[in-house]
């Protein structure tokens, strides 16, 4: 399974990569912001996208909208990762059309399983 991680925080991205690769045995592509992520999603066609919510310029919801607007990326399931934990915010994110919402700080040992759960 190939996962695209879009997060502007390098450390967080790194931990997620380590977790998905080592624990989840997945292929991982990294993107450092929304537009980078959009372009990589288009060219690499990942099986799933882990998308950070709070990012400068193009944030998570904007990125999701862009992904959904494009024919080539419309079908890719997206799971948000957010540091905002209010239930109203989480349900708002879900309503945007994401397959799931994971909260930060996530458990690196269970992240791959949590991601898979969102996709099924």
């Amino acid at each position, binding site marked *: 399974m190939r996962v695209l991680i879009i997060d502007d*925080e390098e*450390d*967080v991205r*790194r*931990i*997620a990569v*380590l*977790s998905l690769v*080592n*624990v989840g045995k997945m292929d991982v592509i990294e993107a450092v912001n929304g537009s980078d992520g959009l372009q990589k999603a288009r060219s690499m066609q990942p099986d799933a996208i882990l998308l950070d919510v*709070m990012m400068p310029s193009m944030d998570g919801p904007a990125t999701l909208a862009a992904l959904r607007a494009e024919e080539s990326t419309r079908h890719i399931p997206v799971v948000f990762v957010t*540091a*905002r*934990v*209010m*239930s*109203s915010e989480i349900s708002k994110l879900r309503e945007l059309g994401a397959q799931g919402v994971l909260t*930060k*700080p*996530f*458990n*690196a*040992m269970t*992240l791959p399983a949590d991601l898979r759960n969102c996709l099924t």
Partner: protein
Amino acid sequence: MITAPLPHDEERRLEVLRSYAVLDTPPEKGFDDITRLAALICEVPIALVSLVDRNRQWFKSRFGLSAHETPRDIAFCSHAILGTAPLIVGDALQDERFHDNPLVAGDPLIRFYAGAPLSAPGGERLGTLCVIDRRPRALTAGQLEGLEILARHVIAQLELRNQTARLARTARTLSESEDRFRLLSDAAPVGIFLATSDGRRMYANPELREISGQSVEQCFGLGWLDSVHQEDRSRVLAEWQQAVEQEREFRAEFRSVLPDGSERYLLSRARRADEKHWVGASNDITERRAIELALADGEQRLRLVMEGSADGYYDWNLPTGRMRISGRWESMLGYEAEEITPHIDSWTSLVHPDDRPHVWRALEEHFEGRKHSYETTYRLRTKSGTWRWILDRGKVVSRDPGGKPLRFAGTHTDIDEKKRAEEMLDRFFSLSIEMLCVAGLDGYFKRVNPAFEKILGYSTLELLTRPFLDLVHPDDRERTQKELERLGAGETTLRFENRYLCADGSIRWIAWTASPYVEEELVYAAGRDITEAKLTAQTLAESEDRYRDLFENATDLIQSLTPDGKFLYVNRAWLQTLGYTKDEVAQLHMFDVVDPSCKEHFARLLAGEELNKVVTELRTKSGEKRIVEGNVSCRFDDGRPVSTRGIFRDITESRSAEQELMRSNETLRARESALRSIVASSLSGIVTLSRAGAIASVNAAAERILGFKEEELLGRDVVSLLPELPENIAEFQRRSVDASLGKVTEWPVRRGDGRIIMVELALFEFETAEGKQLAGNIQDVSEKREVERMKREFVATVSHELRTPLTSIRGSLDLLTGGVFGQLPGGAEEVATIALRNTTRLITLINDILDLERLDSGKLELHFGAAEAGTMMLAAVEAVRAFAEQNGVAIEVLPSPAIVRADADRLIQVLVNLLSNAVKFSEAGSVVRVEARQEDEELLFRVEDHGRGIPSDYLQRVFDRFQQVESSDSRTKGGSGLGLAICKAIVEQHNGSIGVISEEGTGSVFWVRLPLVVKPATGIRIGLFTSSAEATPVARLLYREGHDVLPLDTWRQVRAAVEARSVTMLIMELSDDAEAGDFLSRLRSAQMDYPVPIIVVASSTDAIRSFDDNMTVFVPRGRDRELLEAVRNFAEDRGGPDVLIVEDDFALLGLMQKQLAGDDLRIRVARTGGAAVAMARKGTPRLMVLDIGLPDIDGFDVISILSQDERMRTMPLLIYTGRELDDSARERLTLGPTRFVAKGINGDTQFRTAVLEMLEQICEC
């Protein structure tokens, strides 16, 4: 050897042989004597009776031979039976048929044989009587004859044998039949006897012996006569002899004397059975005779009574038409005895022609059996030609086998006077202009006179079919009901007044006099329309009230005096000012109060002068003087003074105030300057405004805050300080002032330097000599608001800013301790684990702080929904399971059916917190218990542990922030100290409460109470009685719909809920239908005055069928839609339905409802015209579907009643009938828009289409 051929009749022969049943029977002397004699006669050593069977010859008797039988093919006899004459074989060795026969060659070495055939009566030869010798020889003629004779004897012997057997059989049969007969006769309940012609008895059965009291011996011969009563004996005997002589049946009734001397009546009958014998039966008729005698006696007496009675009596023989009539029957009509021909035609001619039809009808109904008895009233013509009212009652007393009446008996009662009195009353009743009625205590008029119709405007039919309370003005209903109850208790009503709603919408006052007739539950009442009088009185009273009110509330002193100086009236201000009470005033004379110097004024007043602007002094009760100024006048009637009236103003104060003012001015000035300096130096801004909103004064602080100089502000409209001007300044001002007075409000203000700031304004009102003014205390809160905003933003960013680095830290530690990079060296693993644990703790702390901040600021949104107590407890337990297992603590959960409106996630958070605390403080091996139970209208959660408890001095503070019990136990550490504070905040946001009961050393119970019923979304509160211990699908369904559910576990709770009216309806969800029935009957028999609708959810209707009324509805289990519909119907019962279907055919009704089922319409049904009217009145339907043929009043009546009601005159109507309607009928069947749809003809969809179209048209209107 030659074998003999078979005789020609072999089969028949064998048959006859077998019929003697002699083969293989033992030897018999008769036959043995014959063989012996034959041997003697023929001088041979062997003689046999041989019977030739199919394959053998068998010897019935044998003399001189030991063998029983020999084969047939070697038998000599086989040859002998071929002819009728005896067969003689002189020497067998010389005979070719036998010379080599084994019986000849061997034993018994036959040489000589002579056999005489045994011929049966039918000629069949069955065998022979034969003689045998072992040497050749011949028989003499005599010997041969002897043999033949003996052969016939054998046959005779066989015949005899046969007969004996038959006789034996017959004897057996005979004895059985006799047994049967004896059994019958022994058990027969009638006496049976057998006698010879001369009367001697040969047999008597036990019953006869019983009823005649004789023994077996006594009965025999002529002994039975001994039991016959001496006086009857010769008669009975003579009767017997006659019967015998004339060969007819003997029949006699006589007395039988029993040994104890008592007598019984017997009826004895006998018939000739044969030449000599008579068979007879005797019955005991003692009782029958007694009854007959009594009847005869009774009838005679009855006749005497009839003759002497005031009623006439008749007995009519229908086939002949003849009658028997009593003297009274005739005298009632003025005839002499026997003057009238006693025939039905006489009667017929006397009946009033107008009455004949109903009299015939009544008779017919009784004759045909439709009426049990005949009763009617009619007029009969008297001798003098006048008419007399008769009450005729009677009954058919006998009918022929086909049921046709034969005899009819009856009585005539003279009811003429009564009837005339009734007629008079009726006339009085109908002519009275007073409203006269007979009303039932059941709330309906039984009879009303025409005055009702005239005064109230309703038709008599309608008055009789509507509960009369409906017609009473709603405000008077309760009073009227009470009055009715008084009447019901037997009291009389005198002048009870209430208002009636008339058909034309007007209201009329009726004064009632009524008395009850309690036994019949009736009230006789007379009412008078007193509307006019009432109105006049009311107008007067109102005007008086108005003036009195004016006087009473005036601030001036008002008094009215009689010409001799007594007080007639003083107002409140007068009493207050002068300090008297009303009672005291009545005792006063005017000059006790008014200065005596006014005597002259008073005299002038009475003389007719009007005095204006008089100033005088009045004395108060305490002796003070009040100076008053006012006008006085006098009212005259017929030139004589009746009363004076004075209106005065108290001017004492204004007079003295003038002087006072001068004195206090100094003080005031000093005080004002002090105030002025306080205001000037105040740190908060103070602004005064004119009522119009112009700034009147400002202090230095206000100048500073607003950034304007005083001179720039004075006179300026305060609204101009707003950054943006409202469109309608005056309107804005008025509203703003109303909204802000007495409160602290916040306004944006544009300062002199253009900066916009937030100002907090406390606006108040004060009064000066110039009138009311406004003053505001203002404060610049921009900075404060900015800080608050920053704090909020800080908290929001903390969430992100702290979590992001924590994500990396935690993730790293997860991966390290998770062994992703291989096993860590010993020390490193421990350190990494510590780091991970503390990171987790830090995250918890941050979460808790954020939670609390949001709870404080009200930003934590609660998502209220139906939360099941049981589910929440299980979820919470699941969350702490691992932690509990780690600590060796068991958690016990008790199930609960309760559902609360709550944020389930948040409540789970509370329970998790309480549970993990409980686990934390429990010893390994102990149990933590969590339960939820209902207490009144609250849900109580309890989390109980058996840990070490909480010190009492600490109990108060456990819910405060950052509180932890000081302890050396490392397990208690690790919490943020905020958990219980968060719990408290969450519970309080649910309008609940939280607390703890604890004893040091034994454990703690943390409890949470939540209101079980929170303001329901639909306003519908349902009491749910269920036998389930857990939340049921029904409860969930109701919650989902936004209804509130109050679980009721016991009968007591149900009753309490109904009586407190805390539920809109009850739903019973029971697994046992019988239980449902039991419950319903209890509820209905409890006679609670609040009739609560009940919905029963069960699996069959049987248990509740008898409770089927419009307050009880049955819904099969699992039909959610129907259940919600039923709830809605009951809840909305006050409003009208969409469609009211009036149809009496149950099946058709079901079909119609089914057709409309999918259209989301509120449908009501009525099956009678009366119900239709009542239901339409209760809530006007949008459309009424009406059938014409109804069981009580028909569709025409329904329309005519409804058309008198303003609200219903325009109701859309769909006439759905099978009748052909002509134009005039159609015209009568019209209310609002009306359509006609014929039943059956137009097909199924026609009805639905018509309903939907009509409803749509109504919407468009």
